């Protein structure tokens, strides 16, 4: 059976596309699926360092698309997680070296090799976006609970609908304490504004930066709330559609408040 190609996109930069691609990809591979994560941010590659595979790049996605190497040669096998492969971006080209038509053909090759292909889309809605979406069957829109991010997500959702793709939503970088205070849009607000299906809520988590520092997979980190949230998103994408969506909670909020009340500081 042919694999599914899912584009991870957002419009805005810095909301967590690359983090989500690496983590969801790793979690799907841990479920036993054959997974390729493709860095489509040509010229600004990052997925390789987030995954700790930057020292093993020989060929890249441009080489593979242009037929300068075999797909196998451009796919870097993760040694910690079975069945996980990275196809890195090229660092020397720009986004215009690839065309959506070429990506459609490349997608056909990928689909034969893998169960899941995750396209890590660059920021923006220009050629890089077009290339990332060209071969995709599905889309996951990553959005932070901020005005600018939600607005960009809405724009991207419109563009995806125009390509007959019904996107699903992940809200990332949630700070539960701020939500509780009423100083951050909660997930109900965001879903209300964007009106698409929600498939996950990911809190702000120091472990994300620690995992990126070391190049270790976030989903293997014990006690990472973000890692756990990404794992649950992967399970939903893998067919466990009735897995409940957990709403990130502020840590020990009850006692913290009591403490604040008693003048024990924040």
């Amino acid at each position, binding site marked *: 059976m042919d694999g599914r190609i899912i584009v991870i996109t957002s419009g805005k930069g810095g909301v967590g596309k690359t983090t989500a691609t690496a983590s969801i990809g790793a979690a799907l591979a841990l479920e036993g699926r054959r997974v390729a994560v493709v860095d489509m941010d040509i010229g600004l590659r990052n997925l390789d360092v987030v995954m700790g595979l930057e020292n093993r790049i020989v060929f890249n996605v441009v080489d593979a698309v242009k037929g300068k190497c075999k797909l196998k040669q451009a796919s870097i096998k993760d040694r910690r997680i079975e069945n996980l492969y990275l196809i890195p971006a090229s660092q020397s080209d720009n986004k215009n070296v690839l065309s959506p038509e070429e990506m459609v053909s490349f997608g056909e090759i990928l689909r034969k090799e893998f169960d899941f292909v995750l396209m890590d889309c660059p920021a923006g809605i220009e050629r890089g976006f077009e290339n990332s979406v060209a071969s995709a069957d599905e889309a996951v829109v990553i959005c932070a609970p901020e005005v600018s991010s939600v*607005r960009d997500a809405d724009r991207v959702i419109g563009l995806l609908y125009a390509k007959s793709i019904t996107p699903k939503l992940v809200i990332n970088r949630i700070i539960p304490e701020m939500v509780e205070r009423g*100083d951050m*849009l909660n997930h109900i607000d965001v879903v209300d*504004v964007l009106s698409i299906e929600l498939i996950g809520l990911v809190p702000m988590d120091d472990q994300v930066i620690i995992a990126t520092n070391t190049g270790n997979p976030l989903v293997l980190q014990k006690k990472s709330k973000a890692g756990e949230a990404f794992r649950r998103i992967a399970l939903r994408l893998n067919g466990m559609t009735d897995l409940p969506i957990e709403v990130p909670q502020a840590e020990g909020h009850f006692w913290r*408040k009591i403490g604040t009340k008693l003048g024990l500081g924040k």
Partner: protein
Amino acid sequence: MFNDFLRKMMGSSPKSDSKDVAKKRLKFALIYDKLEVSDDTLRCLHRDIVEVISRYFEIDQEAFKMDIRRSDELSALIVNTPILSAKRHISPTGQR
């Protein structure tokens, strides 16, 4: 729910609700974004409207004005043109 209740009971940290402002602004921004028409579209519309009106009236094309006005509830296309005179003979197709 329970947290809100507790907070009220203990009279601590009043809710500031800046997120409600954010949500309201977002909703309007998205409506506005979708009403935005490209300059090209406006130019074509301008040309077509002038052409249609010119079939029936002699108009001052220089003074012709077209604008999209937006308010909270609705947006309106406003066309304003001085008419110099009516045309006498109008063929059924509107072609002169």
